């Protein structure tokens, strides 16, 4: 597959090797479609990034494909090239995985920023060429702030394990609660407080830490997040056979699920409920938090920090790149947001009872070019709060 970005007069191309990698790309897109309605594309010198976010901004997913993913890759000269388009239109091109596998030999993706057009050309057998022209809109960069390396708890397991555990819960289940302690991991369905507790069936699955490839827990902990978005990642992971890692901290701070190999990395960042009445432990001993061994990260360096303030995302960092210590304003916002969470949750409950399931989830921070204002009174600015806890935060979170 080629990908050509035209910024100005220059042309940039990326090719995808046929078959296996093309199907991976298609699956990545399907996975992203489970998160949000729009696909955010960002071709850069060091790779192509595909992102999606859900409407309540409580789930974010990001696939980063290195140039090695492609047969030929030409980055746009203009670093600030990012766009978005309805994900359904891209999905339509890659809808039938079996026919992609069978008949497509090569796929070429071309981006023309002047005409705001994305052209996907499928070179099929027998000289058949299928060309799809999709329009996109320019947009701001979409980036959730999170630092998975600083999470106190890391679980890594083969996708089969995750899939098997998720099977015990009905497809309609919204939220799942994951608790860890010592040698065990529990998953149970989370019941909304306002639902009738005497009618709901409770399911709990207990796994031993031995079943995980990697199990590093800093303290007993319990987080609740939306299961539906997790399933999107699991479908991708299962087909790729890559182990899935889960990075998390205390309730309220986002959980990061990721898969990676030498040519791609996927991160799903999901908000967690900040108050969890099913917590197994109440201790928040951050002092004992040990840094988990990060999985080998050989992704290329990323120099997007020119237009993103809180690029704590060390998943894009190469060993040579040191995640810069963040401006204090970020930490300040994190603390601010945590104290206001309870108030806001009450507000939310009163006002937005029909909201999508994540009504109690505070939204993740989405980096904007402007430094976020400190006023957090209105809900519209809520989307600028930082929920990613950083390693220096020792405020008592409740």
């Amino acid at each position, binding site marked *: 597959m080629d990908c050509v970005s035209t910024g100005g007069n220059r042309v940039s191309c990326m090719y995808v090797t046929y078959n296996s990698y093309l199907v991976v790309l298609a699956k990545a897109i399907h996975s992203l479609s489970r998160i949000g309605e729009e696909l955010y594309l960002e071709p850069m010198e060091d790779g192509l990034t595909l992102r999606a976010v859900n409407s309540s901004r409580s789930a974010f997913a990001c696939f980063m494909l290195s140039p090695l993913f492609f047969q030929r890759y030409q980055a746009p000269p203009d670093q600030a090239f990012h766009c978005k388009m309805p994900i359904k239109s891209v999905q339509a091109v890659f809808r039938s995985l079996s026919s992609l596998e069978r008949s497509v030999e090569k796929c070429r993706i071309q981006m023309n920023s002047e005409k705001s057009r994305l052209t996907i050309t499928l070179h099929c057998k027998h000289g058949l060429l299928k060309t799809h022209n999709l329009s996109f809109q320019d947009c701001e960069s979409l980036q959730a702030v999170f630092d998975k390396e600083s999470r106190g708890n890391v679980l890594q397991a083969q996708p089969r394990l995750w899939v098997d*555990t998720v099977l015990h819960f009905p497809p309609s289940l919204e939220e799942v609660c994951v608790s860890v302690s010592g040698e065990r991991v529990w998953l149970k369905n989370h019941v909304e407080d306002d639902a009738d507790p005497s*009618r*709901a*069936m409770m399911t709990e*699955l207990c*796994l031993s830490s031995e079943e995980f490839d990697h199990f590093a827990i800093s303290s007993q902990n319990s987080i609740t997040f939306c299961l539906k978005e997790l399933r999107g990642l699991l479908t991708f992971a299962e087909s790729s056979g890559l182990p899935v890692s889960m990075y998390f901290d205390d309730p309220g701070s986002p959980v990061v699920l990721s898969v990676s190999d030498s040519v791609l990395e996927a991160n799903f960042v999901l908000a967690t409920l900040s108050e969890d009445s099913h917590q197994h432990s109440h201790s928040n001993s951050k002092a004992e938090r040990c840094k988990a061994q990060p999985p080998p990260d050989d992704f290329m360096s990323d120099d997007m920090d020119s237009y993103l303030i809180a690029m704590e995302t060390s998943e894009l960092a190469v060993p040579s790149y040191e995640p810069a210590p963040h401006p204090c304003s970020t930490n300040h916002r994190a603390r601010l947001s945590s104290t206001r969470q309870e108030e806001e949750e009450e507000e939310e409950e009163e006002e937005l009872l029909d909201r999508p399931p994540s009504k109690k989830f505070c939204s993740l921070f989405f980096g904007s070019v402007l430094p976020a204002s400190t006023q957090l009174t209105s809900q519209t600015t809520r989307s600028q709060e930082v929920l990613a806890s950083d390693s220096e935060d020792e405020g008592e979170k409740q």
Partner: protein
Amino acid sequence: MKFRAKINDVGCLNHFTRVVNTITKLTKACVLRLTVNNVYFVLSGKVANGGVSMWCELLQVNFFDEYQLEGVSADSNEICLEVAPENLSRALKTAQNAKFVKIKLTKKHCPCLTLAAELPSLSSVSRVVTHDIPVDVIPRRLWHDFKEPSMPDFDVSIYLPPLKTMKSVVDRMKNLSNYLVVEANLSGEMNLKIETDLVSVTTHFKNLGNPPWADDASQGGGQSRPVEAMAHARVDIRKLQQFLNGQQVNPSKAMCNIVDQRIVHLILLQEDVSLQYFIPAVA
């Protein structure tokens, strides 16, 4: 009040699951009666479910390897619970390859039937999945509603045609009419009929055979009934369809008793489980 049971055998587990799945298709809520020898799923005929009633009886010892019951009192040594069979189905569904399944009556935030299954895992420590199914305990004064139904004074008793065949016939008839007439005689003939302003359709089954009940169980009044005479009852087709849709277990015997213009009584018998379903006739 205590109840504790365990299933070790995978075949028994599968069988039990299939029975529960059948009950789930028939009703959203039913009564679970636990006695020393049997487990019953009971639905008593009420206006809410269109007068349909159901009685499913399992011989406990053929399913459970361990079974301990302490009923409400010494002379009423049984437990009656109202439960949603769908929850039970869901809990059993993912436990099909379990090493064992334990069922226990517990009190969590409310009375629950707790199902715990030990599943095979990748490590030396097994995975354990626990389901807490909320139940309502039924007080003794209401138990009379859930007694075993007496055999109706039927006019005709006949063996049913293959359930699959019946199902496909009834499914297609449902598109044409809401009511269906079931009629049968003592010559082994059964008809399923629908009749509307535009069309009437009848499916005839022959040579079905009639079960040999004791002579005084039917033919009221001592008069012997002419073998060709049809007893018939007009029922809501959806009730019949629901019954046929739910069948997951192949019965060794399937029969239908008809009380003329009153009831269609369906009986499915198997070695360790029997299911009776009563559909009242409509005018």
